[in-house]
């Protein structure tokens, strides 16, 4: 489990939520056409799968699956709270979190000290 896998899980769920009419209206002030909705669903699903694969790769199958479900639930809670109180933030975070995670990952590598 890492910031990146959590960010991917969040963005995946956010994409799935925005593919629904009700929530697209809250965030974009209009309903999306079928094409973009399908794209959002596919992208959302793919991101969730990538998140699962990355988590399992680092923690192993049994523990990794549990961690992935935990991240899904945490992301879902964040989505629901944001959609209720700050709908615009959902889309903003969906873009910002993965970007931030990648930045953190690069910074980590760059600053990693060789082990003694």
């Amino acid at each position, binding site marked *: 489990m890492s910031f990146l896998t959590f960010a991917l899980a969040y963005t995946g769920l956010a994409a799935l939520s925005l593919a629904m009419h009700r929530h697209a209206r809250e965030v974009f002030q209009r309903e999306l056409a079928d094409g973009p909705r399908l794209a959002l669903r596919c992208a959302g699903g793919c991101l969730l799968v990538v998140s699962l694969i990355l988590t399992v790769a680092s923690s192993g199958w049994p523990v990794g699956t549990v961690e992935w479900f935990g991240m*899904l639930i945490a992301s879902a809670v964040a989505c629901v709270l944001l959609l209720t109180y700050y709908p615009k933030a959902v889309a903003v975070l969906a873009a910002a979190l993965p970007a931030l995670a990648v930045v953190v990952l690069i910074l980590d590598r760059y600053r990693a000290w060789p082990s003694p």
Partner: protein
Amino acid sequence: MAWLHAWAGWPAGWVLYAVFISGTLSYFRPEISHWMRPELATAREHPDSVALAMRILQERAPNSSRWVINLPNAREPTLRVGWMAASEPGKADRLIGRFDGVVLDPSTGKELQPRQTRGGDFFQRFHYELGLGQVWGHWLVGGCAMAMLIAILSGVIAHKQLFRNFFTFRPGKGQRSWLDAHHAVGVLALPYHLLITYTGLITMMFMYMPAAVETAYRYDPGGFLIEAFPNPPHAQSTGRSARLTAIEPLLQQAERQWNGAAPASIVIEYPGDAGARVQMQRSTPGKLTNTGQYIIFDGVSGGMLSVWGEESGAMQVHGVLYGLHMARFSSFSLRWMFALCGVLGTLMVATGLVLWSVKRMPQRAEGQRATLGQRVVEILNNGTITGLPIAVAVYFWANRLLPVTLAERPAWEIRCFFAAWGLTYIAALLQNARTPWPRHFFVGALLFALLPLVNGLTTPAHLGISLMQGPAIYAGFDLSMLGIAALLAIAAWNTSRVRPERKETAGDTLPAGTPMLEERS
């Protein structure tokens, strides 16, 4: 199905709320126990713990038949050393002998004297016994857990638009909002709720459903435990003395065997005897099963004799299911996710209870009194939902304020817990329907918010220090108390704003939309 969901959830709801709260707290049992023994606050881990432990054991109990060393870790930084008091020669009562021990600070080697308290263990036991003893408590919790399983399954079957409303929450709309909240916390963490309920039943399954084992082993009663849960054999004393092998190399062997995981405890049987055995148990993080992982070494030669805990098939499934419930395998962040899910489960039960009474207490016109049944439900709801957080806070307050030398100190802390909880019911009884909610939540918020202050006034490890130099457990605990206070404050604010919806209905009839059991003969 909606009918079944309401009736399976409701009477069990009060018990389940207590179970969820204590269960969520139990995820942090070691941290709570550590915070509740402030005499241990200065303890820090140290790599030479084993050498220190062996020295103490050689000094204090050279002729003992059994030495136990519990190594320090991040969640419990103290070194606990114990030994079986030497029995009289000729008496083979090794297993029921008197057990003595000391608690040490690994970094200084000093012996520490923690105050008497049940600590976090109280919440763990309360979680499956509710203070009602092994028979009544276990059966009550088990019955309610079964009811919860039914409630979850019937809820899923009844809720056909499960995914359409997945992300929906509409606050401020009275009964509709409670329903949304109940749906949201129920559905969002649905995998967790199903998992925790089923695995919870699994932990006590031999008590609840003995028929399979009892029938298969009708003519061989002890056989099941031996075949299903084999334990490492006990060492045998030979009577010849021999020098105990060095322990440190064994630690390294164990870590290699366990792919880097450190031992959590070391048990040495018959040290100084030719038949001595050294048994190491793996620490829990990272290994999903609950089954203990052991390595047995020969106490004289240091050779690895056997490895225990690798299981397969049905035993492995059982170990994993049990382990998923205990969540001891989890890392720091995963544990917090479990705790988040536990909070969601608590909220699910609470919103369900409120929904039950909000739906069935028709919006009464002013001046119309509630029926006795409605009043009982209101009081029970309020006393349980607001009373338990208050009781938890009072338990922590009692830990800091009760004198250290008080006789039966652990029992008194627990009495304070139950007294505070009971008083909340009485307070709810004395007020009318809506006023207790914001008041009690506010009291709870205040009690939790002031805890770091009480900690600061009664111990040297207050938040200012613990944030800077540690111990991290103290900082984490105090911050969590402030977090809980914030949540209760939000609840207090929310419940003070609710306005009753007015509708004309006669007292006795059920409001429209109440789910009824369908009878189609």
